[in-house]
């Protein structure tokens, strides 16, 4: 089928070419301009190709990542440094904002032109891995090209899908609660401690609202399934079944309790409803209510305090509430982002060498300054703490990871294919209760039905 299509396309293309030639021969200025342009571009590209073939050592690595301005600056510097020390390696970079990054990556992959090294998100890693778009890095770990001895094994294995190392994790993060101490002072309440439970959490929210009229926690509990995943794990289950074809918990009451907790708090105005939260989100995290002292807490990743430190350096972090009736460890070390190497790449070995340097070298990390999140190598973390260039918030963030490795339970299996669609279903289920359109039981049942259908369709 595909071959036939290609033939048809070839014929049609040939047709257009002759048509365009015919147009040229009539001497219309627009066409002839365009043709000279095209040929000009082609020759210059041809020359570039010759260059690479004559000096055989020269190797170009195409690399793509998303991020904001700071990340682009720092990454570019690191790449330049690598070229300085490895003069035969050149980089072709494609920095991008988050918007459109994966649209473009999938389009490139569809036509076999994925960049050699791509920054990858956990949300999509499985999809790329299952379709064999990214290469297995295990051979480079085995032959010593990539040194993973300083990386926590659980964390490293988050990149392992179907026994293949499809992505090398760059940073880690963990669910945490960020809070603004001044709001607790204002309410005359003690700050939360690591031993607190969900019922403490609810009480705190209510008290803060009663005493100050401010929000307790300001977050969107329906944004994605991360927080709910934590909740499910505290009940001793996992969010997805082992074969990824259905949800991993049996009792819908787990979700019902979760939604009920939040909707009760919303009714008391102790936490923002989805509408109010949308408003809050417009302003960006740097102007969020926790930062400005209009809310006490936020459940976020552990880099939160470090991220907002430019606008408020008083924010503190604590581990999220424990379950009052179970000891199951809900926390896990979440991989921040990965570097994956394209299966179609011709420079896999060189790419692997670079990734190794990126993760393990002090000079690279001195420039990167943990902008992508807490570095995965314990040696690098120690080096950065010793170096003393870090802010207090960054140091606290590093500490949190070290202590979390003890607190964390088993790392969940990588997200199944169809994860973003499951998130969407979750969002709609929870919001339908918050908006009073469905009963909690209905919403939980709907979510199960939709999630199971999505998972079954995507993970055959």
């Amino acid at each position, binding site marked *: 089928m*595909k071959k036939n299509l290609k033939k048809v396309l070839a014929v049609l293309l040939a047709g257009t070419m002759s048509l365009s030639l015919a*147009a040229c021969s009539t001497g219309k200025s627009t066409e002839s301009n365009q043709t000279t342009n095209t040929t000009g571009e082609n020759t210059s590209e041809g020359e570039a190709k010759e260059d690479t073939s004559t000096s055989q050592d020269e190797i170009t690595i195409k690399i793509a990542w998303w991020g904001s301005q700071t990340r682009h600056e720092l990454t570019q510097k690191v790449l330049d440094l690598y070229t300085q020390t490895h003069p035969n390696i050149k980089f072709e970079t494609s920095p991008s904002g988050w918007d459109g990054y994966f649209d473009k990556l999938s389009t490139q992959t*569809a036509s076999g032109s994925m960049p050699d090294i791509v920054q990858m998100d956990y949300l999509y890693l499985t999809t790329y891995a299952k379709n064999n778009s990214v290469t297995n890095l295990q051979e480079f770990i085995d032959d010593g090209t990539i040194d993973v001895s300083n990386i926590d094994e659980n964390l490293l294995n988050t990149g392992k899908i179907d026994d293949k190392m499809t992505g090398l994790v760059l940073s880690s993060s963990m669910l945490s609660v960020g809070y603004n101490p001044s709001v607790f002072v204002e309410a005359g309440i003690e700050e939360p401690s690591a031993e607190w439970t969900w019922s403490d959490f609810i009480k705190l929210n209510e008290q803060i609202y009663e005493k100050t009229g401010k929000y307790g926690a300001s977050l969107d509990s329906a944004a994605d399934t991360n927080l709910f995943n934590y909740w499910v794990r505290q009940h001793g289950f996992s969010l997805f079944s082992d074969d990824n074809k259905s949800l991993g918990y049996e009792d819908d009451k787990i979700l019902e309790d979760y939604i009920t907790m939040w909707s009760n708090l919303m009714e008391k105005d102790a936490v923002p409803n989805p509408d*109010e939260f*949308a408003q809050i989100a417009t302003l960006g995290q740097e102007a969020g209510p926790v930062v400005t002292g209009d809310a006490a807490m936020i459940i976020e990743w552990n880099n939160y305090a470090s991220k907002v430190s430019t606008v408020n350096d008083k924010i503190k972090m604590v581990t999220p509430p424990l379950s009052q009736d179970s000891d199951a460890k809900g926390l896990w070390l979440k991989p921040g982002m990965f570097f994956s190497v394209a299966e179609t790449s011709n420079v896999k070995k060189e790419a692997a060498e670079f990734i190794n340097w990126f993760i393990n070298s002090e000079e690279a990390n001195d420039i990167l300054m943990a902008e992508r999140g807490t570095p995965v190598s314990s040696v690098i973390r120690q080096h950065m703490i010793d170096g003393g260039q870090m802010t207090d918030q960054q140091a606290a963030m590093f500490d949190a990871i070290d202590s979390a490795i003890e607190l964390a339970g088993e790392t969940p299996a990588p997200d199944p294919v169809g994860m973003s669609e499951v998130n969407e279903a979750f969002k709609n289920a929870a*919001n339908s209760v918050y908006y009073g359109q469905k009963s909690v039981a209905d919403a939980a049942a709907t979510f199960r039905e939709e999630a199971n259908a999505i998972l079954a369709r995507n993970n055959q």
Partner: protein
Amino acid sequence: MKQSNTIIKTHYKREDNIAAYLMLSPWIFGFVLMWLLPMIISIYYSFTDFNLLNEPTFIGLKNYIRAFTEDKTFYKALGVTFTYVLILVPLRLAFALFIAMLLNKKHKGLGIYRTLYYVPSIIGGSIAVSVVWKQMFGNQGVIMSLLNALGMEQKVSLLGNTNTALGVIILMGVWQFGSSMLIFLSALKQIPYSLYESAMVDGAKPWKVFSKITLPMLTPTIFFNLILQIINGFRVFTESYVITDGGPLDSTLSYVLYLYRRAFTFFDMGYSCALAWILVAIIGIFTLFLFKTQNSWVHYEAGRE
């Protein structure tokens, strides 16, 4: 569109054919390359299971059947889009025509107003607009304060309310009437002044001048704007993507936003292509219908052959 009324069998002159195709050749070249081939490929995709990363596998009509029988969101998005088109198009056209008429008079500083009114169409989907709109229609925004002052207390903001969010998106569409206005303006400029002069000599009332001269002379442009707005209305994407991202509870999920998500967020390109061709069919029917009716109300100076 150029049906022959008098001659049953049309004879094409050879030199006419040559001349026409010569003049069309740039467009045909671009069309084949950038549209026809991609269309063929996307039709092919619509009959396959294709997630962008795998080899497409042929599955016949399954994607189309899935849309009509299994997919609730498909109907939801279709409903949102129809509502959007049916309300927005008449409102925007009426507004654009009204303002264009006002600006067609001889006042000082009209150029400035033209520019001011065209600005929203330029800054359309930019982040600044999204922030400002969210702010204006949010809890503490101007509009909410106004409603509260008028005694119409709202618990939920207009953008956060599943019943009103689409209304805000539509309002934003009306606000961007600039490009339609511009097209009306350039059409108004083309109406020969002598027509008005002779009407004034006859002492016709303004309303009569409008309905007997301006409106008929404008019908080709109204027709054009109508078709265009319907097509663009059905393809609305940016507004709901930037302002509400389809929410709350999919109440502003436009059809194209949904198929975009299907394609790139959910890795469902085959299905997304099927959705796209269903949309083309829907728009095509509307457009064809309007073209069929144009004989009865559109006034072409050139006459129809």
